C-alpha cells in the first residue's frame, strides 16, 4: 500500500533538520549580535559560537582552536586543495605543489584539482578496485617519486558508501613528508571519526548531511599546519575564514553534532540490518541485480545497486511516482552525458552505471519503509525492462 507520505531514501544528498536542531535554531532566531562586537549583544553571540566550537571539536577528538567554521563541505575541500597552488609564493616557500587524490572524490575536489593543474600544481589520481578501495601500493609509489605536498582521500564515498583506511593512508603520507586531508562529509556522523586516530592534518565536515542546517560546515586544521584563508578580509575564525560568523548555522551544527553523539551508534546498528535486508531482498526478488561498493567496509546507511537493462532516471522517477525518493548514477539525471565517475572508476561498464540507484537511509527510516521499497522495486524494474531494448 502506498504510504501517506513520501519515503526518503536519499540521506546522502541531504537530511531533514533534527527536531532538537530546529528547536535550538528557533530559540536562537532573534539573537542577532555580531560575535566580534564587544557589547552585550556581541558577547552573547560569541559565547554561543565558542560553545559550539568546543562541542564540534570534542566529537572528533580535536582541540577547539583547530576548528574553522565555514559555509559548506565544498568550501572546506576547496580551501585545503587551494593551499597547494601557493607553493611558489612568498607565503609557503617550502610547500611542495604536488597533490595525490583519488578518482572517486566529490566533484568539489576533482574540479578544484583540475583548476590547480592550470595553476602549476601536479595532481595524480589514485585508482580504486572493484569495491572502490584505493590502491595503497600505487599511493606509495607516487609518494616515493617525491615532492608530494598533500594526499587527499575521502573517508567514505557518497555514491557507493565505501570507507577507506584513512589511518593507514595518513601514516604513509606522513612517512613521505606529505600532509593528509580527508573529506569526511559523508562519514562524519555515520561512523566514528577521530582526527587523532585517523592521523589527518585536515578534515572536512558539513552540517546538512547530519540533520543540521544547510550553508554551514567546518574544517579541522591540525595545529601548526600551514594554512591560508580561502576567503580573506576579516579576523573571524582567527583570521582563517573571513566573514561574519553564521551564528545560527554554527549553533545548529553543534546541536546536530550532539545528537549524532547520542544517536549514531544505535542507529548504525539498525541501518546495517536494513541495508542487509535490502541487499538480500533485492537479490532474491530481482534478476541480475548487481551491488556496487564494498560489502562490509561501507557506510551503514548506503546501498548502491545496478539493474542492467533499466536506466536509472526512469527507476528514480517511477519510484518517485510510488512515493519513494532515491538517487541515481545515471547520466540522464545529472544533466551531463556521462554516468557516475565513481562507478566507472570501479571498473563497471557504462550500462551498469546508467542503471544504478543509490538507496541512502537515515535516522527516520523504518522497517515498514524498507519493506515497502522491497515491495515496489521489483515491479518498477520489471516494467522498465519490459519496455527496454536491452533484452531483445
Amino acid at each position, binding site marked *: 500500500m502506498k504510504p501517506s507520505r513520501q519515503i526518503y531514501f536519499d540521506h546522502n544528498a541531504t537530511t531533514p533538520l533534527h527536531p532538537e536542531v530546529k528547536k535550538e535554531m528557533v530559540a536562537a532566531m532573534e539573537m542577532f549580535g555580531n560575535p566580534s562586537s564587544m557589547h552585550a549583544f556581541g558577547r552573547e553571540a560569541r559565547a554561543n559560537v565558542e560553545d559550539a566550537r568546543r562541542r564540534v571539536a570534542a566529537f572528533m577528538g580535536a582541540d577547539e582552536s583547530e576548528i574553522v567554521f565555514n559555509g559548506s563541505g565544498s568550501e572546506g575541500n576547496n580551501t585545503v586543495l587551494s593551499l597547494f597552488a601557493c607553493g611558489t609564493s612568498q607565503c609557503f616557500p617550502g610547500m611542495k605543489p604536488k597533490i595525490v587524490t583519488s578518482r572517486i572524490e566529490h566533484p568539489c575536489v576533482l574540479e578544484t584539482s583540475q583548476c590547480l593543474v592550470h595553476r602549476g600544481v601536479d595532481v595524480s589520481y589514485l585508482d580504486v578496485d572493484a569495491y572502490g578501495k584505493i590502491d595503497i601500493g600505487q599511493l606509495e609509489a607516487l609518494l616515493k617519486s617525491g615532492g608530494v605536498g598533500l594526499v587527499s582521500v575521502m573517508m567514505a564515498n557518497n555514491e557507493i558508501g565505501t570507507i577507506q583506511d584513512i589511518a593507514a593512508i595518513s601514516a604513509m603520507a606522513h612517512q613521505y613528508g606529505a600532509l593528509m586531508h580527508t573529506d569526511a562529509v559523508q562519514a562524519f556522523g555515520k561512523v566514528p571519526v577521530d582526527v587523532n586516530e585517523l592521523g589527518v592534518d585536515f578534515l572536512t565536515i558539513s552540517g546538512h548531511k547530519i540533520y543540521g542546517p544547510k550553508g554551514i560546515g567546518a574544517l579541522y586544521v591540525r595545529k601548526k599546519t600551514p594554512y591560508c584563508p580561502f576567503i580573506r578580509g576579516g579576523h573571524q575564525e582567527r583570521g582563517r575564514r573571513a566573514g561574519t560568523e553564521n551564528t545560527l548555522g554554527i549553533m545548529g551544527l553543534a546541536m546536530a553534532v550532539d545528537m549524532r553523539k547520542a544517536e549514531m551508534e544505535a542507529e548504525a546498528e539498525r541501518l546495517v540490518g536494513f541495508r542487509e535486508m535490502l541487499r538480500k531482498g533485492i537479490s532474491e526478488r530481482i534478476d541480475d541485480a548487481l551491488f556496487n561498493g564494498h560489502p562490509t567496509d561501507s557506510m551503514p546507511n548506503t546501498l548502491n545497486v545496478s539493474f542492467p537493462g533499466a536506466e536509472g532516471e526512469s527507476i528514480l522517477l517511477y519510484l518517485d*511516482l510510488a512515493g519513494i525518493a532515491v538517487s541515481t548514477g545515471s547520466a540522464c539525471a545529472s544533466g551531463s552525458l556521462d554516468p557516475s565517475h565513481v562507478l566507472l572508476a570501479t571498473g563497471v561498464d557504462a550500462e551498469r552505471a546508467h542503471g544504478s540507484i543509490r538507496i541512502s537511509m537515515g535516522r527516520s527510516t523504518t522497517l515498514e519503509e524498507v519493506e515497502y521499497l522491497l515491495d515496489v522495486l521489483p515491479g518498477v524494474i520489471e516494467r522498465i525492462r519490459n519496455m527496454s531494448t536491452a533484452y531483445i
Partner: protein
Amino acid sequence: MLQSGEWAYTEKLKEHFESPKNILQGNDTSGFDGVGMEGNLQCGDQMMVVIKVDKETEKINDCQWKTYGCASAIASTSVLSEMVKGMTLEEAFAVSPKDVTKELGGLPENKIHCSVLGDKALRAAINDYYTRNGMQDRVKKEQAKTICQCMSITDHDIEEAVLEGARTYYELQEHTKLGTVCGQCKDEAEAEMQKFIHLHFGA
C-alpha cells in the same frame, strides 16, 4: 513558500511516462513490416521502432516500440508512436525531433538529445520496409558530410555537439576538436552549428 516542486517535465510528458502507449510486448517483431533501431546501451539511450504498413495506401497503421532510456526518452518514443499512426511513409519520414518535442509540450534543453533517437529509429524502420519490399531506390540513408577534413568531423558530430550544449565555435571545438589543425573549416562549421541550433532549439 512554494509547496510542491514541479517536475522538470511537462504534464504531457509525465502522462506518457506514467502510461506509455504502444509498447512492443515480448521480442517477436516478425509480424511487422519494418524494424528500426538506433542508439546503444553504453550511451544510455537505445530505441527500437516497429511499423505495420498498409501496402495500398502506404499508411502506417501500427507503430510499436521499445526504449532503453530516461523518462524523456520513454515519453518521446511513446508520443511519436501515437503521432505517426495514420501517416503515410513520406509524412512519417519527415517527422523531426522538434515535432516530437512540440507534441510533448517542450523538453528541458539537456534532454533534447533524448528525443532525437525515436525519429531516427522510425526512419530506419521505414527504410527497412522499403528494402524488404524491393524499393531500394526509395531508401534514404542519412549520409554524413565531412566538415573538418583534418580531424574527420562530420555534420552528424556537429549536430551531436549542439545537442550536448555547444553554442559557440569555441564550445564546438571543445566538444569535437574540429578546426584544431588547419582551421580552414571554421566558416562552414559555424554555419552547420547555427543550422542545428535553429533546427533543435530555434523558436
